[in-house]
Each structure stands twice: as C-alpha cells, then as structure tokens.
C-alpha cells in the first residue's frame, strides 16, 4: 500500500493560482468554494520585507479530528494514507468543519455533503498526480509515495528540513512544507 504525501516547496511558489483553478475544474468545486488556496504572508517594514507563500489544503492527517468526530463514519482514513468522505453516509452535520484545525472543509451548497481535497483520489487510481500538482507552474507542489524510498517526495524529505502546519495539535499531517522562504543566495 502506498503512503501518499504532498511536499510543498514554498520558495518556488509564485502565487499564480493555477493549482486552485485546476482543482476547481478537476473536481467541479462549486462557485466561491475552494478545496485548496494559496496564502501570501508578508512580514516586515518597507523595504525590509519577507514573504511566505503557502499552499493550503486538507492535510490528510493520521490523527484526523474530522474522522474521530464524524458521527456517521462518512469521514474516514484509508490505507493509502488519505482521508476521504463517503458522500452517501454524510449527513452534513458540520461537526468535521468545526473539528478541523485547518479550515479546509465546506458543505456543498447543492448536495449538502461535506467536501474537501481528496488528493484527487480518482486520478491516483489512473496513475496520475493530483490536478494541482500536475499543473503547478512553480513546481512547488510535489506528490508521491513516502513508502517508496526512491520516490521524489522521500528524497525531498530526507534532504530538506521540513515542517507541518500546527504540529502542536498532534494531527500528524501528510502535507509537508520545505523552504519556507526563498534562499537569499
């Protein structure tokens, strides 16, 4: 069984939103809702400034509060490391939305079920990367199998210091961040 993870090289993100647009089209995400976003955070004072570009999406947590709180079992952890939602079981109670520390879920305005990033599960089955990764103009988003020591993501996590978002909440995310800021060579 693979263990899917995303590695995001923040220094290479140019904030172009191609990933966001690709996700929306790939997954027919309803108008004005998003499964992923790119956050631009600037600190400092003119002219000493520093920018962090951060792609955010579901972290496919190992200890996922959305899964443990879900009363119906609709939100569940799969063997491949991804967290998925069984739409038939979902009753739209919003408990997961409240429980998720990362604000990455929404209720589908027409169908009423909870929705979020699936790591493009349907594409993975076809051997393709998630849509955001496939089109990432900066090659900032990378994806692969952490159980394969030769995969690009394994290499990246061995060779770089990495972090996850909100480690203090103990969710054990599957989305890793490297190079928080561009190198000032």
């Amino acid at each position: 069984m693979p263990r899917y993870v995303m590695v995001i090289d923040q220094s290479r993100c140019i904030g172009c939103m191609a990933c966001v647009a690709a996700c929306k089209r790939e997954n027919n995400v309803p108008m004005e809702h998003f499964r992923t976003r790119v956050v631009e955070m600037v600190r400092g004072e003119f002219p000493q400034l520093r920018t962090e570009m951060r792609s955010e999406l579901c972290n496919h947590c190992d200890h996922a509060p959305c899964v443990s709180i879900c009363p119906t079992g609709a939100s569940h952890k799969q063997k491949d490391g991804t967290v998925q939602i069984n739409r038939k079981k979902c009753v739209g109670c919003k408990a997961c939305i409240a429980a998720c520390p990362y604000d990455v879920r929404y209720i589908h305005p027409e169908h009423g079920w909870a929705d979020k990033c699936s790591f493009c599960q349907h594409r993975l089955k076809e051997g393709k990367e998630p849509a955001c990764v496939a089109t990432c103009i900066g090659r900032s988003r990378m994806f692969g199998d952490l159980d394969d020591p030769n995969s690009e993501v394994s290499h990246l996590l061995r060779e770089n210091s990495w972090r996850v978002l909100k480690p203090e909440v103990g969710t054990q995310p599957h989305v890793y961040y490297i190079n928080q800021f561009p190198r000032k060579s």
Partner: protein
Amino acid sequence: MAFSRRNFLKYAAMSAGGAAIVDTPFFSARARAEAEGGTARYVPTSCEMCFWKCGVIAKVQKNKDGVDEVVKLEGNPLHPQSLGKLCARGQAGIGQLYDPDRLKRPMIRTGERGDGKYKEVSWEEALSYTAENLKKIIEKHGPHSIAMFSHGSPGDYFTNLLSALGSGNISFPSFSQCKGIRDATWELTFGHKPATSCERVDMRNSRVIVLFGTHLGENMHNSQNQEFSQAVGNGAKIICVDPRYSTAASKASMWLPIKPGTDTALLLTWINILISEDLYDKAYIEQYATGFDQLKEAVKEYTPEWCAKETDLPEANIVEAARELGRYAPSVMIHPGRHVSWYGNDTQRVRAMAIINALLGSWGRKGGLYLPPKGKFPSYNDGAPEYPIPDEDPVIKGNYPFAGGEGLTQVVRDVTITSDPYPIKAWIIAGTDLLKALPAPARTREAISKLDFMIAVDIMPAETVMMADVILPECTYLERHDGLFKIETRESGVSLRQPAIEPMYDTKPAWWIASELCKKMGLDDYAVKDSWEERMKRQAKAWNVSWETLADKGYVSIPDSAAPYITPENQPVFKTPSGKIELYSSKLEEKHFDPIPKYEPTEQPGEGMYRLVYGRSPVHTFSRTINTPFLWELMKENELWLNKKEADRLGVKHGQRVRLENQDKVVSAPMLVKATERIRRDCVYMVHGFGHNSPRLSKAHHSGVDDQELITHYKVDPICGGTGMRVNFVKIIKEA
C-alpha cells in the same frame, strides 16, 4: 489506463531543449482516447486565454443530452510554451466557452451609438450591411479611410481583408501600448528582437536575473514563469527593480525599490561601473560590438553617489548589483521585459538595458539570452495574388522614425479625430477592447463619434464592442481553426488551433467572417478557397510538416533547429548597419536622436499626489477575462495598493473604499484600499483591466476600477511612438 505524469514531464523537457523526442502513445490524442475505451475525445489545440499560445489538450465528452462538451483542459506536454501545464486562465478556458454573457448572434445597431440598442440579424444580413457601408465609404474617401485594430488571431484575417482592399491602416495595441519599443530598440542594438514566441531568456541556466518592473508570477506567461521558478529553485540571484514589492521581488536576493521614472539613471550608472571597474566582457565587446569608446566617455558622469540621490536607492546596493552582474557574466541578464511604455522616453531606457546585456556578453550565452532557433518557414499565402499598393500611404507610423510595422494605435485615433492628412471613416475592431487598451479613453470615444461606420468582431460584449454599428460574434478558441503557428522558442516548431466542439449559438470563426466579407467586397481571390482546415493542410505540406502528426499531437518540432549559444561554428548575426552590436547607434544618430542613452529626469508627483502605476494579475488577461466565471471568482475586483504609512497619515484604513482623482480632475469609482508595506510612498498601484462599463458583462460590470479612465495623460516616445502611461498622478479622496 495508467501513465505517469513524471515521464510526461521528462519527455516534454527534452523536446523543449531541442533533443530528439521520445515518442509514447500518449502524445497521440487518438491513441489516448482508444486506450481509455473511447469514452472521451482529446483535441490538441492552442490556448487563447492570453497570447502565449500554449499547447492545450481539450477533453471532450458527450453530456446527458448527447451533445459534445469540453470537460477539461490540460497542458500539452510536447509543446514548449506549456510543458504539460496550464496557468489559471488556461484552466478556465471552459468558463469563457460557456460564459452565458457571450455574444451569440450578429447584431445591427438600432439606437444611438453607445446606448446598447441592437437587433439580432442573420449573418447574411449582417455581412451585406457591413459590405454596403464599407463600399459607400470607399467610394467617397478611398480604401485608406478604413482602419483596423486588433489583438490576437482574428487580426490575421482582417489584415488580409484590409490589405486586399488597399488600406494599410492596420494597428495593434501590442506595439505602442506594450512591447513595441522593446522590439524596435533591441533591433537598433542587436539587429534582432529579444523575443520570438517567448522572450529568449535562458533563466534556467542563469546566475543573476535583473527584472525592471517585470513582475513574473503576476505577469503570467506559462513556460517563462515555470522557468523563473526553476531559476529560483536553482539559487539564481534575483535582483528586482520595482517601486512595488512584487511577487518576483519576494523571490529576490535584492529588491531595489526605485523612485519611479529614474530607471535610466540606475542603468547608466551600472554601465559606468561595469566599464570603470573592468567588469565587462572585453573579448566579446571587441569581437562583436562597436561604439565602446563613445559609450565609455558618455557614461562617466553617472556616478553611484549621484545615482543614489536620483533613484532613492542605497549607494552600496547600486554598486553591489553591478558587481554581481560582472562577477557571474555572461550567465546573467537584464530581462528585456514586455510592457515598456512608461514615461515617454522609454527607448533610451530600453537601449540602456540592451547595452548592459551586450557589455556582459549575455547575448548568445548560456544563462543569458539564447539565439533565435534555426529553421525558417516561408510565408504562406495559399496562392492569393499580391496585395494592391495602398491608394494613400498609411498613417500608422506617424512621425516616429522607428515605429514598427504593428503601427501606432493612438496615431490612427488622432487622424480619425482630425482628418489630417485624410479622413478615416470606418473602424474594424477585432478582439481588442480599445477603451481599455488605449490611454485617454475620452479621445477614443471622440474618434468613434467621428466614424461613419464601426464594426466589432469579438467574443464578449465589452464596452467598445457595444459602440459598434454592426457586431459580428466570433466563436472562442475552443470552437475554431487557426494557424498554422510558427513557435520559436529554443527550437523551432509548428502548432495549430483546431476546434474541440462546433461553434455554439450563431457564432463564427474570424477566418470565415473576414473571408465572407472579402467575397462581398468583390475580393474573391483573397477569400479562403474552401475551409481553413484545408488551407492549413496545404500550408503543412508547403512547410514539410505531417498534417496527421500535427493534428494528432498539437505540436511538431523541427529537428536540429535549436542553436542557442555562440560556438565557433554558431556565430551570431547582427542585422544592424555595422553588422555588429551597436552600443553607439548609427541609425539613431542619422535621425538626430541621442546615439547613446542619456538620462532625462521624469516629472515627479506634487504635494499630496501619487504616481499611478498599474500591472497584471496572474488570473486575468487585461480586461478580456474579468467576466470569465472561473477567473472572476479568483479575482473580482482590483485593489489600490497604498503605502501603509501614507494610509495612516491620510487616515485611510485597509479595506476601506476610496476614490482617486487625477491631475485632470477625473474621479474614479470607489475602490478597496490595500494598505501595505509593499510599495513606496510616492506611488499607488492597481491591476489593469477592471471597471467594465458594459452592463451585458453581468459579472465584470462595475467590478473594480479602470486604470485607463485615470490615464488621461500620456507622453509619446519621440523615437518609436510608444505611449508612456505612467505619467499620471492621483490624489486620494476619502469619502467614497
């Protein structure tokens, strides 16, 4: 059917590098569809959400009513402009295709010009009406009284119509409002433009990249941005000269927040440092350039100390940047940029940029600018006769000796207003929203009021379109053939546009519209013989490219056409009068302009005023995509970037709405303030293209503010005729 994207990308990179292409079945649209069991069709074509012409593969499936529907667009891995990826706009092309606000049927104006009253008519009626009116005008004033403005592929077909009629009054905003000065100036210096299908910047191998206002990341051209990120990943030093802390500046090791209007001071000082500190490439200059001694003499006066005062930059940074360039030369570049019509003396600034690239020996060198590819394609006219010589000289170059063949839009507009030297009585506008593209839109309106007849060919009911007497609705790029396209990147190649689905509503491809007008005007010899597809097949044959392969794969590369770097066998050719790089321009001297750039100060804003600076967003292409649903959702309106300390001083809060009033008392609609440390105190910034006035654009209507309405003033570059548009000053009015 499984395939790995990784492999796709690997192969794509190889093809773009000019190496032999490794074939796989999935480069074939047909094989891919078959492998998936025929539930979908794949159509390789070319994007036109902007003008980079990325290769796109459209996935088409039958919807529940059995009608073909485009369900997904992805980048063609074979195509060097996309390398398997699409930008946000490229992804959102389906939104343009299915935008309910599209122009759907031909229309003839029934009310007053501009009041939006039209009747829908048949194509036969619309075209006959158009031809009748054009004939009347030609009879009275001659063919030169018909002018055409365009951006994008419809321009080709209407250029054919006008040329066949005998009018040379054809102009494109891409020259005087954008990159014309750059191209003309590099031709003066190197005898070549710095760009073919893309800027020929070898960023993936660069050690130092200097950007002057070029906001990569926000100014989205797919492959170029991919390569910029690659350069950042490689650890290239980015030096960003921009009054605004752009996305590119956030990647830079040095951000130089220059006082707007003083860039030439910085450039000339760098030239002085490179020469006086012996940091330039002597052997290269000796072998390939002329005018070095005059240059050396002329720049002596530009000292770092003087420059620091003039540009408001730290002297140490000015010197350090020049030394970094010298240290890593020739794997360095001053990026030539695109939109360079800023202050009205732009030729000399761009000349200075070109000259620095020459001094560093970066033209034709790894990590600098690569040489144009080999493999020329003969021009193809499908056996049409020569065009007649225009009955009167075109006015498109005005009195600007180095204006390019794309013409000066504002000069055609002026002549339309004044009738000097002759009346211009009809405009054909194909794919450009002139009120948004040209400075001083009041003059555009005035010119339109002088016309006897105005024709618009477009996809969307933008404001300029809705002033036309007849509207001929074009189908989108996903519904038509265009091309063949020469794609000249590191290598030469050929691509095409072909329809993913049949045209929706009663819309038609521009080739058909222009061709039918040729017939109605009695110019049958210039009309398309059968269909554009058949013509493309003949052209492919003439170019020795297999039509089957091209139509199936979307891009065909020309073997052995890449020759990016100077080698003993691959010597550069400079098409200048001296056959060398002209540091001292003989052509400028001949026309009594400074043969070596000189610094001329630009007017600075007065008390309480800010210079208005504008730019791009990666999710929009000027004004043309604001209404596209999937893009509108990503950016609905533009914000006013205002320095945080200035905002505090004025008592303006982040997120508040304010109006702007310019030096000519034009007041904007209210707009959101982005109070930020990311911009100097003497200027404000907004993304161009917003503030649509056409109520038929249901999403874009009155969303955000139109920078062009505030650009009432423009300064024309005396050498090339570009319209400098960063010469407007605004004050902030708090009660919105």
